[in-house]
């Protein structure tokens, strides 16, 4: 069990796998599983766009 870094919602490990990206059920923030043991999530990196600059 861990929590969303944005809203504090409890997040359970369930069937998540390392590297999986999923939305927080409360605030919708995209989260990434960064570790399974111990179970940790962090804000998922946003897609970087190359705008040709």
């Amino acid at each position, binding site marked *: 069990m861990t929590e969303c870094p*944005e*809203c*504090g*919602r409890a997040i359970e490990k369930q069937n998540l796998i390392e590297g999986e990206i999923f*939305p*927080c059920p*409360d*605030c*919708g*923030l*995209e989260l990434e599983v960064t570790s399974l043991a111990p179970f940790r999530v962090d804000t998922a990196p946003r897609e970087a766009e190359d705008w040709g600059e």
Partner: protein
Amino acid sequence: MNVSIVGGSGYTGGELLRLLLRHPKVDVAQVTSDSMAGKPVVRAHPNLRRLTDLRFTPHSDLDPCDLLFLAMPHGRGMDRIPEFLARAGKVIDLSADFRLKDPGLYRTYYEVDHPHPELLAKSVYGLPEVHREQIRDATLVSGPGCIATAAILALHPLAATGLIHRDRVVVDAKTGSSAGGSDGGLAAAHAERSGVMRAYAPANHRHTAEIEQETGLRVALSCHAIEAVRGILATCHTFLEETITEKDLWRIYREAYGKEPFVRIVKEASGLYRLPEPKILAGTNFCDVGFVLDEHAGRVVTIAALDNLMKGAAGNAVQSMNLMAGYPETMGLEFVGLHPV
């Protein structure tokens, strides 16, 4: 349970009928209207065609029933409330006549001297999220105002914390045309209302008294008419006494509303509908509540959206009826809304 509606020809009466005719535990016995006496109720509420053969009866022909809904304009039921209470064991009044506990406020906000101040202490302010247990045992429930409902639900959790300045609260409300009733006069004419963005009550709106009574805050309320038929959006500005984080706000609102069947916390990181919007709540009994921390200004903006005829009136009244009768609180109120709409 046999229920009747007094003053059922308006929009709130129609919405009550829409809900009650489909409620599994309710039989609607009578719907009264002097102006439409003898006419089918579907004449006033065409969306109910084939659902009922009821006709409006005059107020004077009202029979005893188990529970009575009063859907009359403010002031019309004040004098007759003892008669209504004698005719039905329980009464839910959707007007403002028994919302305020201080009788002096009726002179200030409604320009009347209340004829039954002794009943103001007996009536229960009918907002289940604040007075659920009192509503269960009540005989007289007073349905809150639509703008007040949105503002109270937005502010109540924060007001209980002591984190905000209690005398610096601004509520900016936008409202659709149906909140003005079916007899809205010239202001409701299409030519006047279409495209409107009008500050119709920048100060001293009547609902100020209810919001202050229920939150304990001193509130500056401004109300605007906008281009919508249904819907209230209340944007509430509060100012912090101490530093907090958004996670603190999540904890406060989650504790208040995490188990509420009709209040949803809406504050999402992506998508179109990140904060509450009344558009997708039309016909539902939900009040969506969201918040944003403005660190720059030391401000918390709380936002509530609802359908003024539902959570702001008839839906909330049926929710209260369910509590008074011991039925499941959500019975007959399960509609989840439309999208797109």
